[in-house]
């Protein structure tokens, strides 16, 4: 049992941090980037590809690097630290993950190779308007005639959907079950919009749109889809952890420097105690994030699903706690768009409402309380 990052993982963290700092040295740089479409820095995306970061999750055969979940988690944490708007979770972890999980060897080599090299950007369309996490894919239906497949329906929100070259769409199959399809971005009617944290999502309308089934046509892929959602949830928790680390640091720095009543704010125990509680939430969240990330390596989908719910619950609560307190302890400046702390809180909410919020994870855990005597960290 070991909760430390090895030298290579540390080196990866340093490298990613260094690269992100070239683009997002300060929050102003992020503001400029998200002001215009596509809402992220394409040049940085290319440099992430050059560094091998985009190919981390994929096998070398598919043009990737073949790294493990801990490495991907490190990248997500670093992205979170600077609120990087790059669609790493949406494009690489989620959409790329779906391709890797269900695609044929040829499909994987083609798509994942180009995704890893930065040539194409993907987005996953798995949510229909009004739907909630893993509530099914009724919004999009697949039809087949001969061996030509088409899709009909609406997906929304599709994170990163306006810029994506290809969409990875989950759709109800004619004979039941859920399939995964590849659709060219230009073949759909899509409307991009800006989310609360200024990242991008889109409404995607499919109307008899030609689609290529990923993997064996007509096969129910629901279990793989669920596992990739769980995995994305865990990586989203890594990203949220990075956000919260920055918020706690910014808040303590602020308490030490901001003066009111002739003294710095850290003179007031009412505030330092709240900062201490933020730190407690952060440490507990870090423990859960590390654990959930390591659980992925075990390869048991049931364990990964459980870990996703557990880390999802913890991170949702920590995000509310730290996100709200970070603003409150900054006072008015925490409310401003030019200051990272409040935008971080927006980012935490977007991650949470996209990937699964507290109520969702709690309900799932609550439904399972009687299938175990107690929950053990060590099996």
């Amino acid at each position, binding site marked *: *049992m070991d909760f430390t990052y090895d030298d290579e993982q540390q080196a990866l963290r340093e490298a990613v941090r260094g690269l992100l700092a070239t683009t997002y040295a300060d929050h102003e740089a992020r503001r400029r980037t998200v002001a215009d479409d596509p809402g992220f820095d394409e040049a940085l995306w290319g440099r992430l590809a050059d560094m091998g970061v985009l190919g981390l999750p994929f096998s070398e055969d598919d043009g990737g690097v073949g790294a493990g979940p801990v490495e991907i988690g490190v990248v997500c944490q670093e992205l979170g630290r600077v609120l990087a708007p790059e669609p790493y979770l949406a494009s690489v972890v989620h959409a790329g993950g779906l391709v890797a999980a269900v695609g044929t060897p040829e499909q994987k080599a083609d798509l994942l190779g180009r995704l890893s090299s930065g040539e194409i950007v993907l987005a996953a369309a798995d949510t229909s308007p009004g739907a909630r996490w893993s509530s099914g894919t009724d919004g999009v239906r697949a039809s087949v005639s001969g061996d030509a497949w088409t899709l009909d329906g609406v997906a929304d929100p599709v994170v990163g959907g306006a810029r994506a070259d290809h969409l990875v769409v989950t759709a109800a199959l004619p004979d039941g079950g859920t399939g995964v399809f590849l659709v060219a971005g230009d073949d759909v009617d899509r409307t991009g919009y800006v989310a609360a944290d200024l990242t991008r999502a889109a409404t995607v309308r499919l109307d008899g749109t030609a689609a290529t089934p990923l993997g064996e046509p007509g096969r129910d892929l629901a279990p793989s889809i669920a596992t990739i959602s769980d995995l994305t949830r865990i990586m989203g928790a890594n990203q949220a952890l990075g956000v919260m680390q920055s918020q706690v640091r910014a808040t303590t720095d602020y308490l030490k420097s901001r003066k009111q009543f002739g003294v710095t704010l850290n003179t007031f125990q009412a505030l*330092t105690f709240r900062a*201490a*509680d933020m730190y407690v939430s952060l440490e507990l969240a870090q423990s859960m994030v590390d654990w959930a990330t390591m659980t992925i390596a075990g390869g048991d989908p049931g364990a990964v699903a459980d870990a996703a719910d557990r880390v999802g*619950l913890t991170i949702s609560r920590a995000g509310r706690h730290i996100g709200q307190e970070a603003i409150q302890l900054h006072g008015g400046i925490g409310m401003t768009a030019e200051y990272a702390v409040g935008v971080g809180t927006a980012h935490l909410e977007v991650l949470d409402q996209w990937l699964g919020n507290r109520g969702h994870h709690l309900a799932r855990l609550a439904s399972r309380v*009687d299938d175990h005597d107690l929950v053990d*960290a060590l099996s």
Partner: protein
Amino acid sequence: MQLELSPTDAEFRDRMREFFTTKVPQQIRDTVLEGRHLTKDQIIEAQRTLNAEGLAVPHWPTEWGGQDWTDLQRHLWHEEMQRAGVPIPLAFNASMIGPVIAHFGTQEQKERFLPATANLDIWWSQGFSEPDAGSDLASLRTAAVRDGDDWVVNGQKTWTTLGQHGDWIFTLVRTDPEVKKQAGISMLLIDMTSPGVEVRPIELIDGGHEVNEVWFSDVRVPGDLLVGELNGGWTIAKFLLGNERVGVAPVGATKRALSALKANAGDLLDDPLVRARIAELENDLLALELTALRVVAHSSDGAPHPASSVLKLRGTELQQAVSELALDLAGPASLAARADDDSPQAGWARRAAPTYLNLRKASIYGGSNEIQRQIISRTILGL
């Protein structure tokens, strides 16, 4: 990063589990598992059983009965003990005065006290707090004045846990009233049968007699019972209160309490609100357990991991939260707290209110949760 225990550690854990579940008398373990009170004799018997196997004081130096274990192994030992319902070795002996004597004591003190302390032949009490010295312990006033080779002690200690069983008490006393308050404190070991020592019970809100006042009137203490340097008591107090990394949070015991609560809940488990509270507590306990593992698995250079305060703070909060839920599940049955044994109400439900009330102590003693927040904000966050 790796989740699994190494084969050595896994084997170690199995060995602990095997011993605790087969060698410690069942009737003692049942008492703990059902949340009932242990008698003095049961506590002594359990500790002697462990000590005979070298499992009572593993963190002491090996020459005094310690085991050369890693922090992780000590953690596993501690968790398995709690899981099996084995009483943890008396903290005053095993975690407090034993390590202090081993570290600061003279050779003579070590020989005289350590074996008897490990085996609970001597029952120690902790005489630190006073009516006017709680969180601000250094303001203590119980005074020791030189008289020839002896010390003469006058004053009052309070909150002395299980002082009614105590054979000896380790005290912090003021030996120099003229200097800065921390600089004038020494540690004295006092035989509680000495003339002038009086133990008076304090009744707590759960109706139990768990703590006491201890009064000292001209108590004569031989000079060789001073531990460490004269006026060096504050250093010893910091060592004693701050050197723990393992077992800071009662993770295993709280998990066990929650699982017992589930087993007792019956039809109440159909209530989605109850299920949600359980699920949330289980999750919080998992986060706590993982944090405890991070703390013990990190460095082992003896320096407290900064997250130790997190463990104390969160561990006591969760311990209290589980007792709250148990009380809510007990409902009206909890009114029968002091009913006779032939009450139709279930034992766990009758114990729910006293347990809930009793556990309010957890966030007060051992450095209150406010003091833990102070430590976090000052030493970790630099505020």
